[in-house]
């Protein structure tokens, strides 16, 4: 076949043709290719017909034969590829024929952040504007960090093997029973630079372990969010101001806080903090047992012994600390009846309770 009779761009297109047909991965692209080569208008075929019309008489026969051969070759190849593609995608109904614009569009399927993580992330976001950053510590701790550094006496029942998990091959290694050892770690770390830093304020979210049997309100593993601030002249009013802000940020502007005296070895004074029931707004409901308040935090001013243990002078520095049970708060807010649901991880629960941020 003498292609020199044809305009060069058509000859060039023909050279690519076989490759392009093989490369057409679906019917749509094949149809585009078909249009380009053998379409009724503005195709290579139609342009060849124009060339034929204006060709000198003596060339017309030869040219016509070449054009016919080319067109046949093209149509043949296109038809074969079409059959091939249709065979390969026999089961896939073509959208072009089944599309009904009234059909709802398919939506992306989302997963979810676990509700407990979501609540912890939210708390971090709430405290971020107050200058708190996040500190993390290991789940495997020493007695020194988990108890000694927190002014917990040596004969305290929490140290017993009935309450705390210990590793069998490593004496004194245990699974932390609260996030408070992060206080000890951080204070010890910053003690040499505390003047330069101007104190510290941080949040420590994390997993903790206690030897509780699994039931609707207990789990041997759960989460806490610890908060701590150390500075100059820190008092109970600062604790109240901070938690008051945080609870409003978390639950809305009606969320007042109430302090009640309580006792934890690592704080003095110590308190428990109630928040005005986020569900009924304080008028009384099942969740707050009619009182209008729900307990949400344990807190207090950092005990001087905790600062001393870390090498910080309690006559210069003072601070507060607080700890929130994540599961307890999550259950209260969501009215989830059974703690075990959070650890069962049924996708239906996770998708309903979690979210994307």
């Amino acid at each position, binding site marked *: 076949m003498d292609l020199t009779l044809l305009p060069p761009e058509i000859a060039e297109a023909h050279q690519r043709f076989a490759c*392009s047909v093989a490369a057409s991965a679906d019917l749509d692209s094949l149809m585009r290719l078909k249009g380009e080569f053998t379409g009724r208008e503005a195709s290579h075929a139609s342009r060849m017909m124009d060339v034929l019309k204006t060709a000198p008489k003596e060339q017309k026969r030869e040219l016509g034969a070449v054009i016919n051969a080319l067109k046949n070759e093209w149509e043949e190849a296109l038809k074969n590829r079409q059959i091939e593609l249709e065979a390969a995608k026999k089961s896939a109904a073509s959208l072009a024929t089944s599309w009904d614009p009234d059909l709802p569009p398919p939506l992306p399927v989302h997963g979810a952040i676990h509700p407990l993580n979501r609540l912890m992330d939210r708390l971090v976001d709430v405290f971020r504007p107050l200058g708190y950053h996040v500190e993390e510590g290991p789940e495997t701790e020493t007695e020194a960090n988990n108890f000694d550094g927190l002014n917990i006496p040596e004969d305290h029942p929490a140290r017993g093997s009935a309450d705390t998990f210990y590793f*069998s091959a490593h004496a004194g290694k245990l699974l932390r029973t609260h996030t408070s050892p992060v206080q000890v770690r951080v204070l010890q770390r910053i003690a040499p630079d505390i003047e330069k830093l101007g104190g510290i304020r941080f949040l420590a979210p994390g997993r903790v372990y206690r030897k509780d049997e699994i039931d609707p309100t207990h789990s041997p593993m759960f989460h806490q969010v610890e908060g701590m601030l150390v500075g100059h002249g820190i008092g109970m009013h600062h604790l109240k101001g901070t938690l008051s802000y945080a609870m409003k940020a978390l639950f809305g502007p009606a969320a007042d806080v109430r302090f009640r005296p309580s006792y934890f070895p690592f704080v003095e004074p*110590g308190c428990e903090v109630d928040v005005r029931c986020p569900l009924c707004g304080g008028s009384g409901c099942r969740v707050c047992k009619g009182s209008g308040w729900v307990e949400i935090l344990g807190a207090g001013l950092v005990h001087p012994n905790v600062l001393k243990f870390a090498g910080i002078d309690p006559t210069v520095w003072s601070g507060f600390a607080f700890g929130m049970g994540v599961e307890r708060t999550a259950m209260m807010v969501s009215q989830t009846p059974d703690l075990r649901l959070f650890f069962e991880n049924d996708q239906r629960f996770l998708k309903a309770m979690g979210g994307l941020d």
Partner: protein
Amino acid sequence: MLIERRALNAELPAINEMSNLELCELLASLGFPVDGVETKDDQTVLEVDVTANRGDTLSQRGMARDIGAKCNAMLSAIPHRTLREGAPLFPVRLEADACPVYSTAILELGMVASTPADVVCFLSSMGSTAKQMPAVDASNELLHRYGHPTHAFDADTLKGALVVRWGRAGETLRTLDGVERTLTAEDLVIADEAAAIALAGVMGGDSTKVTAGTKRVLLESAWFDPRVVRRMSHRHGLHSDASYRFGRGVDPVMAQVARDLLAARLEDWAGAKLLGAWTAGQVPAARPAITLRKQTLARIAGTVIELTEAAALLRQLGCAVVIHDQYLESVSPSWRQDLTIEEDLAEEVLRLRGFDRIDSVLPPLEGAPLPLASSYLQARNVARRLAHVGFCQTVTLGFISPDVDADFAGADNPPEGRTLGNPLGQEFSVMRPTLLASLKTTAELNLRQGAKEVKLFEVGPIYRSTAEGPSESLALAVVWAGSLGGEDYLTRLRPVQAADLLGIIRDLGVKGAIALQELGEGMLGVEISLSALPEHEDRIIPKFIPFSRFPTVERDLSLLVDLAQPYVDLEVAMAKALRRAAGGCFQSLGCVDVFRHKSLPTGRQAWLMRLRFQGDDRTLTSDEVDGWVNAALEAGQGLGAELRG
């Protein structure tokens, strides 16, 4: 702790008119939240939470005293006849510091005995049943009413002198609950000349117990060191009403008073006759004064509180206070053994003033806030990213069973170093070496629940045994199981494939080899160390890289290759050729379609390779691109590929 309303009112008549609701609010404001209010035999009984430091409030009178301090109201006098003490009827020797005072009396019981109805009723409010043995019932009543535990021995079973001493290693004692206990040198015991007869402050012994046939009783009312009692109670796993109170600190001054009250009850209820009463040792001296500076109080309270006001409140608690210019000195009453430092006094002042009067002030920012750590952001971001592409985050327990552990842990990570000595049970005994163990179980559960597609991930610590102990590192595990698609008219139902999961992990920015695992039929999983993810980028916007504004040219090559052809080899060879030929104009190369069909030559498949080129400074001509494509084709042909015509 149970509080009977009638008994409480009897101690503090000022609250007679107070409603139960008001009382509950008041108790909560003092640090004693009420867990429940019940009516038992027309008596209102409150269940009150008492913190471990307040042993002084573990009785009707103790609680009344704290309420009285708050309301500034007087307690009733204890109706009490002081016994005249005489010479000891036999020696009582205190050989251990842990028992500084021991009051006792011997009484001969009368023939007829009964516990008065109102005491039976009170004991029932306290959740205890009267035994109709006056010595036992009266002791029990005193414990609940006044908070001081006492004990009665059958005096005729004692052999010689009474000694309070440390236990002797190997010595045994059968306690009232019938358990034979082996003692240690850290156990404080009451003994006679022959043997130990009671675990001090915890429980009496079986051989000397009071029975229906007892004729003479010896009363014990003492004070034992709280730490010693707590340790004994813990060591023997023996928790009694007595050890609960002694362990939290009772009032040593009450030792003698409780003895007198117990003796008087035996006289009244059982016609007992006092044979003699005496006390060994003496009540420990008051603790030294605690200084509370005005400045400290102001710092803790957030406002200036005059020392006169603070002193008045502390005096309401029973403290002896002396005011100086800038500080006060306070000697605590004998029952408040929990007050030891300045902060304790400040707390008491605030407590009686009311925590509701504390202001609400945000602390000033002293130092610059620190940034969120990159590792924290990394974990948080990866979770969000996976959630957005359809994966649910799980939270599973950190421990697994040894069987499951054996399926997953490598030989270099033996379970011994990760095993708990006191697990909840076998199935929760080993700290997991991989998150996949838990995710597999969770995925199976979801499939059993009828899920067609399971997409889960977890971010959490995994454990490794080392010589120093278990070491943990953060990992990310992703599991994808079941089938995907088929839920709309655009995607067909098909099983999850390795490439699906691989794509997710690559998309997170993980480079290098990725070890996918088949966890079960149609269940794929992968675990990577969180440190394998790209670090969280702190820059708001990355550094500018110049890009070309000239058009990209795209060429497809359909290649026939062997079914066994490794893809990476082909890609590397073609990319190398393209870089050599096209230099900086070569943009990308990848397989966009795989075609396997019987219409192809046997043992061959077709790969559609897409090549992209772009010039930095010009529009590429089709001639030069053709040349580069040919170079790529030749490289492919070198590996046995051929152009599909």
